[in-house]
């Protein structure tokens, strides 16, 4: 997997100060996408074990609220596989850090085992480690810059753990 950028102490992609990882590769190709160059899976820099270590270190301070992964598409099957070890390590080593994932796939698509485009062997475990999923493609007609932490009004900020627990989509209270 490649990635385009990492922002440290980022305040634009989730509450508090966070580390934000922009992974490369996306097959949605939404009209009006804000980061078209990241559609290419080979865009940017190679994601290595060192990259993973850097990210892990960066979320350790108590004033860093967590990690946000966006892109690109963090839930492309190949990216899921590359990112799972990072999620595992964060949850194991840094309990205070929460994990936000921005995906063009919807909750329903990701949790549907028959959907081979979005659901992989890793997906259930990834969601079990995720705190918030901002789901759905960006729809230019529904764009609204006054929205907090999302681009278009169709996107949902889902509290993943509550959604799993209650068995129905539960939105995060922002």
């Amino acid at each position, binding site marked *: 997997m490649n990635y385009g950028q990492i*922002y440290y*102490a*980022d*305040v*634009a992609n989730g509450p*508090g*100060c966070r580390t934000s990882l922009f992974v490369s590769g996306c097959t949605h190709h939404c009209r009006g996408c804000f*980061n078209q160059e990241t559609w290419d899976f080979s865009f940017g820099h190679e994601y290595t074990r060192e990259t993973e270590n850097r990210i892990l270190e960066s979320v350790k*301070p108590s004033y860093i609220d967590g990690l946000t992964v966006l892109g690109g598409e963090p839930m492309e099957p190949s990216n899921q596989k590359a990112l799972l070890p990072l999620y595992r390590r964060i949850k194991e080593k840094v309990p205070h850090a929460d994990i936000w994932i921005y995906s063009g796939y919807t909750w329903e698509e990701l949790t549907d085992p028959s959907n081979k485009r979005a659901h992989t062997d890793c997906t259930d475990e990834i969601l079990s480690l995720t705190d918030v999923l901002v789901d759905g493609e960006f729809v230019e007609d529904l764009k609204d810059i006054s929205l907090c*932490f999302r681009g278009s009004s169709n996107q949902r900020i889902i509290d993943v753990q509550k959604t799993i627990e209650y068995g129905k989509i539960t939105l995060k209270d922002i």
Partner: protein
Amino acid sequence: MDTIVVKTNVIKRNGREVSFDEQKIINAIMKANKEVEGIHQLNHAQVQAVADGISRQVAASPHAVNVEDIQDLVEKGIMEMRCYEVAQKYVRYRYKRELSRKSNTTDNGILALIDQVNEEVKQENSNKNPVINSTQRDYMAGEVSKDLTNRVLLPEDIVKAHKEGIIHFHDADYFAQREHNCDLINLEDMLQNGTVISETMIEKPKSFYTACNITTQIVAQVASNQYGGQSFSLAHLAPFVDVSRQKIKKQVIAEREEIGDDLDPEKVMKVVDHRLQSEIESGIQTIQYQLVTLMTTNGQTPFVTMFIYLDEVPEGQTRDDLARLAKEVFRQRIQGIKNEKGVWVTPAFPKIIYTLDQDNIEEGSPYYDLTKLAAECTAKRMVPDYISAKVMKELKGDVYTCMGCRSFLTPDNEDNDEGLCNAGNKSGALDYKEGEHKYYGRFNQGVVTINLVDVACSAVKEAEEKGTDRFEEFDRIFDERLELCHRALLCRHNRLMGTSSDVAPILWQHGALARLKKGEKIDKLLFGNYSTISLGYCGISEMTYEMTGVSHTDPKGKEFALKVMRHLNDKCAEWRRAENISYSLYGTPMESTTYKFAKCLQKRFGIIPHVTDKNYITNSYHVHVTEEIDAFSKLKFESEFQKLSPGGAISYVEVPNLQTNIPAVLSIMKYIYQNIMYAELNTKSDYCEVCGYDGQIRIVEDDNGKLVWECPKCGNRDQSRMSVARRTCGYIGTQFWNQGRTQEIRDRVLHLSIPEFSDTNEMNVNASVK
């Protein structure tokens, strides 16, 4: 005849040293000679003899000789030849030259400022609007004061160093009068025990609203009698909430009795509380609106800071009342004030400082909701700034606010030789309690700032010229310059000595600072710790780069920078010990001076990359505005320097619009609480009146290379049709800035959302703004 070899230099009036030239003396004598009849003239041999005599005396002098002293020698020499007529002509000539040198030098400056072409004055102070008549009157007085200061009141070498940008003698425009700089006013004493405003007795107010009204009157009077800022505590108003509550309660009971309603305490208190709330709202609004609309005799709104520290009042009702007042202050500030177009904008004053403490910093602590509101207020209006009670107790033993100009008083503790600073109540405060530490009523005498960048550049230059070690040169020049600052500070101190309490009754007689007798001198308050005097410094960043080739965030640079900071403190301590005057090291919040210093440095040393290549130099110990560093690392790094800046200094972090991410503001606030005594967040809230854009207005270069402000939405560049608020050095400015400061504002990098790779900066960083 042998010529006399004179190696001794002559110091000219402008301070420059030149080599001695006997011919000039001969010329001067010959000139006077020609004015008298032949019989009274000196012959050639006599002229030569006088000149040789002077040459010998100058050559024998162990140090450079002042040109005035040489003229004395000439006079004496002519007299010794008994040519009294020539001597008389020479003396008259000298006197005439002296007069023309000291003749009126302010005409041009004053006319230029009235015609609004005096750029320097126009951009000097971001809180003054120099086109307004009343402000111009203040500036005219300032020009006269500066002129007197330069020609009459200060020694020439200090004036020269000031002009060359080696040091800065602050507030020369007020130096002619006997005014001090800034203070913490003792509002409590004035409200509780009464005061006098414009010869009118003001007794203890009988309601909260009246107390607020009196407070604004006091602030206005104080501001008109000093040139620096003042701070007051909201805690001093808190007791009046209950005064109003009890008063309203009586009224409500009487009213209900009159119309036969029941006196159920719950119902009564509900009505009382409603009315009290509306009185609190009116009172806070009075303070806010009166303070921003007032125009003092200094031609500006008062520089005033409101301090909020819950522990200043006893736990229980009064503390809850104080928290309630603070909540109302924040609520109204978030709303803003309406400008002339009816748009809600960010007011510059009063500045607000909120103290972070264990009872309000963690989720679940009793006043955490207030802290959250403070965070919202900061995101929207840049204030409050934050003092960490935890760190301040570690550093100073007490918690107290800085004075108007971000300067901190010296802690009041028993360990000092003379004990507590107000021992025996020398200030005559009516709220004096023996053994209690005193902060309200204390003040600062004034500031002189050393330009550390110039010390470094001078050292490197001399070392290169002489082939010596630059660090040795640095130490030598540093000490010379410090001694110059020391003498300049003593001039300040001595100017205040002998001041009668009559010059500002509100300050010295009626409780704001003291309650001295009429005609009593303020001298005793100028010694010990009662008042401080500030040795300012600036440009640690550029200085370190020039000397070590690296930033002071680099370990090697840091070691040098900290050494310099310690030496500055050692000097203050040495002077204090010798004179019992509370010298204190102060990270000067320079406004126009940053531009002046930068210009002087370029003139003296040319363009040196990272050192003199900008139109500004960095304030105090701050990390350079262009250096990429995250907010937390910056605060942590700077806290080490803040510790060594006991006379004051504020750290800041530059952040984007955080109105939608209050948790991030709170994270930074919690970090401040744990790590640094005093810090602020620079947020952005601008407004374009042409298109209604509400966000960050940017700085661009116009066709002539001048920096101008431009609305990113509609391209409007008309400064009169936009409102821009930026914090430049502790204070929020809304009147735009000089080119140096504007460049500095443009160069500021954000201390949040730091990219790992700068090559992909083009990438959109914000998922929510497509």
